[in-house]
């Protein structure tokens, strides 16, 4: 009953747990839009998401591939968490709440897809590979500020990943009415299973490209 009125920090609550206020079909509509826009951005910034958590710079990938990957990441984790919720929850869980909130929870990867536009991270990766391991096409010239910028962008990506996981967890907790150690343990389990499954799905999609 602590849920109704706790004005500790409403702004933070909205950022970390918007699902107190939005779930069901509204979250689903907004979330599907988020996934589509993310795929469009990823297409132009050469970013892709080979599982529910990873952000990778890629070569040119077709738009259908990025849409399928984004949809797959969302769909697979939603199915896994829905099954978990139905088995473990004392409440009657609605399918639309799980799918809707998990779709909206992917919001942080919309800006993450934009990070690929800067190219600094990719260049920094090539720089580190050549300098430390002698791998790549040759020395990469990189100014100090550019390296700093690349590191900043990488830290930003990590923050966005943490935000994503926090949103996914809160989405699961509210949709499934689970609390405490039980919700934490089940979420971690579902998350790991989903990483493996989405990884397999992306590999399957990639195999279709060649």
């Amino acid at each position, binding site marked *: 009953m602590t*849920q*109704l009125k706790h004005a500790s920090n409403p702004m933070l609550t909205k950022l970390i747990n918007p*699902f*107190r206020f939005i*779930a*069901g079909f509204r979250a689903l509509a907004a979330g599907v839009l988020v996934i589509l826009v993310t795929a469009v951005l990823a297409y132009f910034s050469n970013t892709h998401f080979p599982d529910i958590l990873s952000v990778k710079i890629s070569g040119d990938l077709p738009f259908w591939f990025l849409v399928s990957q984004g949809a797959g990441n969302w769909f697979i984790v939603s199915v896994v968490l829905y099954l978990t919720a139905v088995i473990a929850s004392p409440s009657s869980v*609605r399918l639309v*709440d799980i799918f809707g909130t998990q779709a909206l929870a992917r919001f942080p990867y919309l800006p993450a897809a934009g990070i690929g536009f800067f190219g600094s991270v990719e260049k920094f990766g090539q720089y580190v590979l050549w300098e430390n391991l002698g791998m790549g096409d040759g020395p990469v010239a990189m100014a100090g500020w550019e390296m700093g910028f690349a590191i900043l962008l990488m830290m930003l990506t990590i923050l966005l990943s943490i935000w994503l996981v926090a949103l996914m967890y809160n989405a699961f907790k509210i949709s499934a*009415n689970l609390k405490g150690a039980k919700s934490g343990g089940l979420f971690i389990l579902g998350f790991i299973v989903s990483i493996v499954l989405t990884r397999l799905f992306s590999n399957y999609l990639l195999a279709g490209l060649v």
Partner: protein
Amino acid sequence: MDKKLPITCPSCQSELNVQSLACESCDTTINGSYDLPLLLKLTQEEQEFILDFVRFSGSLKKMAKKLNLSYPTVRNMLDDLIDTIETRQQSDADETD
């Protein structure tokens, strides 16, 4: 002033009973020992939730809309409340046994 009915003892945390009731128009006082009704043993928030629930004819959807909360949030509150009531009834039954 908005006074809150105390339901637990401030010194030992046990549940309080009603010991006297007073009529304000004729100054009669009744003494005895009465259990508080279950509804009054709930927190202020829980009581408000029940009133809202009745006001919205038991529709969680309407309630969520009016309170600007998501449907599962309101459903979870109801399920938690059912849980609280059941535990309370159980412990009250155990006491009278």
